[in-house]
């Protein structure tokens, strides 16, 4: 499948107690990848995390919004149990099934100075939309 061209980016948006994460891109999977980057950036600076070790992820959900939350929570599970941080992501979505990979390294407190732990991705401010030929995916994460 040819890559769709366009600019992908991530950002944080405000929530009183927690943090909003948003990813945009030319495709649904690009938006999901960017949202994952935004989530890592809640914890640490992305450029401190070497994308050396690969972890595979698979999840499925009845709609794109629930799938986004599942994708992020699956990443959090791997981060928590492997004690890793990730800085590179690749996602493929077909129907309600997501297969993906995350690359990163073990947590090093001195190197990464993690600011906060992300407990879970939530359904608050949850949206996955296609607009102006691009995709946007966002939600609030509980920290």
């Amino acid at each position, binding site marked *: 499948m040819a890559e769709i061209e366009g600019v992908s980016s991530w950002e*944080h*948006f*405000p*929530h*009183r*107690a*927690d*943090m909003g994460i948003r990813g945009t891109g030319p495709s649904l999977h690009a938006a999901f990848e960017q949202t994952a980057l935004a989530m890592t950036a809640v*914890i640490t600076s992305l450029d401190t995390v070497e994308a050396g070790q690969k972890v595979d992820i698979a999840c499925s*959900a*009845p709609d794109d919004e*629930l799938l986004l*939350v*599942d994708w992020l*929570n699956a990443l*959090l*599970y791997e981060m*928590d*149990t492997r*004690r890793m*941080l990730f800085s590179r992501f690749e996602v493929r979505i077909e129907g309600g099934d997501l297969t993906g990979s995350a690359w990163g390294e*073990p*947590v090093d*407190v001195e190197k*990464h*100075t*993690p*600011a*906060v*732990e992300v*407990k*879970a*991705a*939530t*359904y*608050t401010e*949850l949206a996955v939309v296609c607009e102006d030929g691009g995709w946007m995916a966002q939600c*609030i994460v*509980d*920290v």
Partner: protein
Amino acid sequence: MELKKLKKCSEYQWMAEPYGKMRVPVRFYGDRRLIEEMDEKVLEQASNVTMLPGIVGACHVMPDAHWGYGFPIGGVAAFDPDKGGIISAGGVGFDISCGVRTITTGLAAEEIQGRKGDIASLLARKIPAGVGSMGKLSLSPGQMDDMLTAGARWAVEQGYGHKEDLDHIEEHGAIAGAKPKCVSDHAKIRQKKQVGTLGSGNHYLEIQRVSEVFNEKIAQTYGLVKGQIVITIHCGSRGLGHQIGTDFLKRMVISAPKYNLEIPDRELACAPIDSSVGRDYLGAMRCGMNCALANRQVLTHLLRQAFSELFPRAELKLLYDVSHNTCKEETHRINGKPRRLFVHRKGATRAFGPGYEKLPPEYKDAGQPVIIGGTMGTASYILAGTKESMDIALGSACHGAGRSMSRRAATKKWRGADVMHSLAARGIIIKSPSLRGIAEEAPEAYKDVTAVVEATHQAKLSQKVAKLTPIVCIKG
């Protein structure tokens, strides 16, 4: 929040009358300023809660309330299982049974003043905290199920603490009805090496000084002496709780149509208490509660070990342990009749008054201790539940200061190093792995805890007993 949207019931109580799909009113507790400062989302979220089936009385909003997810943080709502009442994973949150415990030491502040730096460094080494941290224990599957069933009691049986500690914990250290088989393998794997870890964000272990006593009699009952040192631990159920929340929120969203539930906000995902999903969630949530109680018990053991190294004379006694993200089965008098209700307290603390039969005998006259965590630069408070509180807000009080600005806004306004230096200038030592984390937790990013506590006292939700000011704060 525009006060003209609300009806004033008294100086410290306001009400939003039900309209549309709201089944009961929303009741706000606080002074005029605190309620005006609440974001509009609090009213929206509390109104959504009142639309859920089986709700009894009102959705009660505490003085420290702010925008949460589904439920407002600082929200209390009870549901009757015999009236199709629901239980909501969003109404408990991801950090199931996040809570606080305070421990008295018998030491005068002067005794530790000269060794503040030493105890801060020792605790930073001995208390596992922050992203990637591992506890000192690694549980086998059998041990995991035992811990989830018996909570702090399990921890004491393993040698972490004393039997007397259990008398000073809600549910006597372990809530009945926990069902480990309702907890996913994912949740148990996450927790395997996290027992006895502090977490991060707004969690802390803080050494404090009793700086003011408001009620001498109750302070004496609780063992609080002005000028003495106490230690407070704030944390929850760690990875297990987070995973249970994640698992059941999804399950409840997907099963809602099956139960004909119209959920105004997906984060309010819920199920009838009397349903297989509801019963499974109860069983799992109670495991989460026991996990948090065990966690704080193990941390107390590590704290006692560290303190005995530097201050062998200190006697660390547990004053009380309260949780503030729970759903508990309780009996309350509603219109003169006792009713069995499931009470959600999301960022709110149980505050039962004098005479409550499950209080330890020595606390029966005083009422249940209520611990309100402040910020690392302001103060925390000890209060006591009142008789009136049972009739006002189902025996509930606030849980802390509540944030007044987002984490993002805080890091734009303050630098972590500056926050640390300004606190150091006031004699407060902070230990944290991250300067950005410190900026996010800057004291000015939180509401005025003194105003919150004063409003709680004036609204008779609890009464003030003592004020605690920080000396050393360990963050993750």
